[in-house]
C-alpha cells in the first residue's frame, strides 16, 4: 500500500458542478429540469422456461422509468416482483426482450456485449451477499475493477488506499474477506463498486443480509457517496428503513409492472394504486390487516373508519374531535401509527365509531367535506 503518499480523505467528486446535489437534500425534486441518467422505455424481460415445456417467466412488462442524475432512486416491491432483474438491465448483465434502456448518452439495448462492457465500467454494483472475491485480500478486491480498467501502479495502490480510507477500512487492507463482519464486507463491496469513480451505483438489496445497526452504517455510507461524490444511486429493497433514510424518489414494482413512481413521501402518504397501497400498508404497518380487523370487530361494536395522517391534514385531530362531539359520536382509537418520512408525518389511525341513528354517517360526511382523507373498513 502506498503509505507514503498522502491519501485525500475522500475520492474527488465528479467534476459536474451543475449536477452536484446541494448540501440539503431536496425533499421533493421539484419541477426544475434534471438531467435523466437512466431511462427505461417500455422495457420487458421474459425468461425462457426452465426445463422442457415449462412456461416462460415474465419478469418485467412495459416498464418505463426515468432516473435523474444525482438522485437516490429506490425500487421497492415484494420478492419476485422483478426488482433484481430491473437493476441488472441497467448495467447490461441482463438484456431486455422488449423496449430500450438508456444510460447517460448510451442506448444500452443498441450496443453489443463489448459496448456494454465499456458502459459497465462507469457503473458500480453492490450485492446482497457482497460477492467479494475470497481469493483476494480486501485491497485486492478493491483493486480488481481498476486492473480491469487498466489503471497501472502506483496509481492503483493510491486509489485503493483512498477508497479504503473513505469506507473506514484502511487498516484491514491485507485481511481476507472471511475475516470481516457483514457490515465490513459490504463496505469493501461499496469501495470496490466505487473504485473506477463511476457516476452510477446500483445497490441490489445491499443491506438485506445485515442487522439493523449495521444497516444504518451502510446506509449512512451510501448517503455520503450520493451527497459527497454526486453519484446517482439506484437502490433495490423491500425494507422501509432503506427507503426512509436514503431514497429521494421510488418506483413500486408489482408483478413485473411499475405500479407507481413518485417522491418517497407522495408514494407512502398518498398511494394512488392498489398495489402501492398494499405494499405501503405492509411496510408502514399502520393499517390493520384482515385478521386484525376481524379481532377489532369482535372487540368493538362501532363502525371502523381509518383516517390517513399526512402533512396536508394539519390540525385534523382537533377537527375530528370537534366533529365527533358535534354529532354525539363516540370515537375510540383502536389501531394505527404515525411516523416520519423525509421529516414529514405519515401514517393512519383507525377509529371505532358509535352514535345515535344516522349520527356516524353525518359525521363522516362532514369530515369528508372538511377534506379529511378517511375510508371505512369494509366488512370482510
Amino acid at each position: 500500500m502506498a503509505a507514503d503518499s498522502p491519501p485525500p480523505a475522500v475520492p474527488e467528486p465528479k467534476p459536474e458542478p451543475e449536477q452536484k446535489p446541494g448540501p440539503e437534500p431536496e425533499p421533493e425534486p421539484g419541477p426544475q429540469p434534471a438531467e435523466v441518467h437512466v431511462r427505461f422505455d417500455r422495457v420487458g424481460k421474459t425468461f425462457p422456461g426452465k426445463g422442457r415445456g415449462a412456461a416462460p417467466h415474465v419478469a418485467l412488462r412495459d416498464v418505463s422509468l426515468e432516473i435523474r442524475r444525482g438522485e437516490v432512486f429506490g425500487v421497492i416491491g415484494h420478492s419476485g416482483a422483478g426488482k433484481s432483474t430491473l437493476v441488472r438491465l441497467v448495467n447490461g448483465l441482463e438484456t431486455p426482450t422488449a423496449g430500450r434502456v438508456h444510460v447517460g448518452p448510451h442506448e444500452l439495448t443498441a450496443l453489443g456485449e463489448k459496448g456494454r462492457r465499456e458502459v459497465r465500467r462507469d457503473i458500480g454494483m453492490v450485492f446482497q451477499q457482497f460477492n467479494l472475491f475470497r481469493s483476494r485480500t480486501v485491497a485486492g478486491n478493491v483493486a480488481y475493477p481498476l486492473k480491469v480498467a487498466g489503471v497501472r501502479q502506483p496509481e492503483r495502490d493510491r486509489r485503493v488506499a483512498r477508497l479504503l480510507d473513505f469506507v473506514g477500512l484502511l487498516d484491514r487492507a491485507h485481511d481476507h474477506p472471511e475475516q470481516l463482519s457483514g457490515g465490513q464486507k459490504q463496505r469493501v463491496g461499496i469501495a470496490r463498486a466505487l473504485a473506477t469513480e463511476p457516476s452510477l451505483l446500483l445497490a441490489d438489496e445491499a443491506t438485506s443480509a445485515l442487522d439493523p445497526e449495521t444497516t444504518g452504517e451502510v446506509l449512512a455510507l451510501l448517503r455520503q457517496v450520493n451527497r459527497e461524490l454526486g453519484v446517482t444511486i439506484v437502490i433495490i429493497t423491500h425494507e422501509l428503513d432503506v427507503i426512509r433514510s436514503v431514497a429521494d424518489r421510488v418506483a413500486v414494482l408489482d408483478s413485473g409492472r411499475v405500479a407507481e413512481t413518485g417522491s418517497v413521501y407522495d408514494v407512502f402518504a398518498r398511494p394512488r394504486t392498489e398495489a402501492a397501497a398494499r405494499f405501503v400498508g405492509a411496510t408502514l404497518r399502520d393499517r390493520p390487516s384482515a385478521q386484525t380487523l376481524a379481532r377489532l370487530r369482535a372487540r368493538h361494536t362501532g363502525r371502523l373508519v381509518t383516517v390517513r395522517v399526512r402533512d396536508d391534514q394539519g390540525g385534523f385531530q382537533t377537527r375530528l374531535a370537534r366533529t365527533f362531539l358535534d354529532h354525539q359520536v363516540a370515537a375510540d382509537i383502536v389501531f394505527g401509527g404515525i411516523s416520519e418520512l423525509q421529516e414529514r408525518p405519515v401514517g393512519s389511525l383507525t377509529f371505532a365509531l358509535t352514535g345515535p341513528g344516522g349520527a356516524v354517517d353525518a359525521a363522516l360526511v362532514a369530515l369528508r367535506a372538511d377534506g379529511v382523507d378517511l375510508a371505512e373498513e369494509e366488512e370482510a
Partner: protein
Amino acid sequence: MHEFTTNLPVYREAIRQTLSIVGVSLAAGGVLGLALGLVLYATRPGNLLGNRAVFLAVNVLVNVVRPVPFVIFITAIQPLMLHTIGTTIGTGAVTFALSLSAAFAISRIVEQNLLTVDPGVVEAARATGARPVGILLTVLIPEALGPLVLGYTFIFVAIVDMSAQAGLFGGGGLGDFAITYGSQRYNWPVVYITVATIVVLVQAGQFLGNWLARRALRR
C-alpha cells in the same frame, strides 16, 4: 537382499522413467485438461460464453474418451501417435497417450470445481466490465484453486496407476520393473520394494497436494 541389489541400476532407471512419464503427463495433461475444462465450464448454455454447439461437442468427446481403459486407449490412438510423434512404443509414446488420457479426466475435475464457484462472484466480476476470458483466468481459477489442487493431486495418483502399464508398450518404469525383474523371475524382494517405492511416491505427491491446497484455502 542381493536379489534386489544386483538390479539396482535398472531400479534407478525405472524410477527415473516413471517420474518422467508421470511428471510430463501431469504437466501436459494438466494444461490441456485445464483448457478443456474451462471450455466446458464457459460454453455451458447460460454461462459466460454460453454456446450449446461447442459445449455439446466437447461434452460428448469427453464422455466418449473417459470411460475407455488406458490399455485400450493407448492401442486405439496408435494411428494418431504414428501421425504426430512417429512411433507407438517407448517412453515418449506412453507419455503422449497418458497426457491425452489425463487431459480428459482433468477437464471434468476442472469443470466441476469451477461450477462450485459462487455465481454471484462471477456476476460481480462481470459488473466491473471484465471480459469473459479475463474472468476465467483472474477470478474463477483463483477462487477454485484449493479444490483444483486437490483434484490435480487425485489425477496424479491416477497417472501413477496408469503409468504401471507403460511396460506393455516399451515405456519402462516401475511397473515394468516389478513385472520383468520381479514377478516373472519369482524375485519377490524386487516386487515388494517396487510396491513400497510407488506407495512412497504417491504419499509424497498427496502430501504435497494437501499442503498446497491448504495454503490456497488459507486453512
